[in-house]
């Protein structure tokens, strides 16, 4: 008999167990794996995200006029596994904690994120090249080729021109030494 009063008191103290969700905002942990998003200024276009994506939700395609490449994520095929974020070398892809993805059928093919990442032009030959961010360049050229003070200048060249430039500078440095 007393047991029910105990339960009543406890329920009064604790309040309702039901979350008030549709009438108030739901609690979302900050690290909740929700909608995938991407920063085009950090993307190097390596395509590892599209390669590891189990649902083929990510697609990278060169644009028709060859001015850049398009990057798209279709949220309706994304399993929110986070592989793209794990394998992205520059941290361009991240998972937000936004889970409000329910939509009507008319919006099925528009619940996606599209970016057009433009190509840069090689300062030497004018070929379109993909952007290489400074952090990644510092990792690639960790040995610091002789005669190169500023990596930023090298990064404005296409790989072929860059190789030539490094060779040229190495030769000059060797001749000086």
């Amino acid at each position: 008999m007393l047991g029910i009063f105990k339960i009543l008191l406890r329920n009064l103290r604790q309040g309702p167990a039901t979350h008030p969700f549709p009438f108030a905002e739901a609690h979302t942990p900050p690290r909740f794996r929700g909608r995938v998003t991407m920063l085009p200024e950090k993307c190097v276009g390596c395509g590892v995200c599209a390669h590891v994506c189990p649902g083929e939700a990510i697609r990278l395609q060169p644009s028709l006029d060859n001015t850049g490449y398009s990057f798209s994520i279709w949220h309706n095929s994304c399993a929110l596994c986070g592989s793209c974020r794990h394998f992205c070398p520059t941290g361009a892809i991240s998972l937000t904690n936004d889970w409000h993805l329910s939509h009507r059928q008319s919006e099925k093919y528009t619940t996606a994120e599209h970016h057009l990442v433009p190509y840069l032009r090689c300062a030497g030959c004018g070929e379109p090249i993909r952007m290489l961010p400074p952090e990644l360049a510092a990792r690639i050229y960790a040995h610091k080729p002789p005669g190169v003070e500023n990596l930023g200048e090298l990064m404005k060249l296409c790989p072929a021109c860059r190789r030539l430039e490094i060779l040229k500078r190495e030769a000059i440095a060797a001749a000086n030494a």
Partner: protein
Amino acid sequence: MSFISDMTVRSPWLFRINAGSCNGCDVELATTAFIPRYDVERLGCKYCGSPRHADIVFITGPLTVRMKDKVLRVWHDIPEPKVTIAVGICPISGGVFRGGHPIAGPVDRYLPVDVNVPGCPPRPQAIMEGVLLAKDIWLERVRAQEEARQSLKKLGARPEEKKEEPFIDAGYL
């Protein structure tokens, strides 16, 4: 529409069809319904055990070839007006199973889907958002049906008897 019918909103009954799901989305659906933390019955929804009593139907799973005819049969058993919700990425797009040899889906190739709830699995609150969307659509359809019936009545015409259409087996083999 009278004042009373405006004030008394009908409650949709929910039914779920597993079209070859891994059970992840089904667990989330059960969570939405049966644990007091999310409690979908607050929204006036109730799970039912028979498709003939259902108003809103959840479909989970990528629609495997073996399940396709069964799913279609059960779906055709649900009386109109009905609203179909695709829960999880599998029924919406095929998800990680897209293009596999035992997959006949996505579901909207065979059925008119109304609401999509992506996620693998979607969290219970996302499913509840989908239910709210579906409830709006369903109430619109109920109202439209009611208006059609009223206008037929005014004309003095008898509502057309809906003939029981035999289920046509799409045939996959």
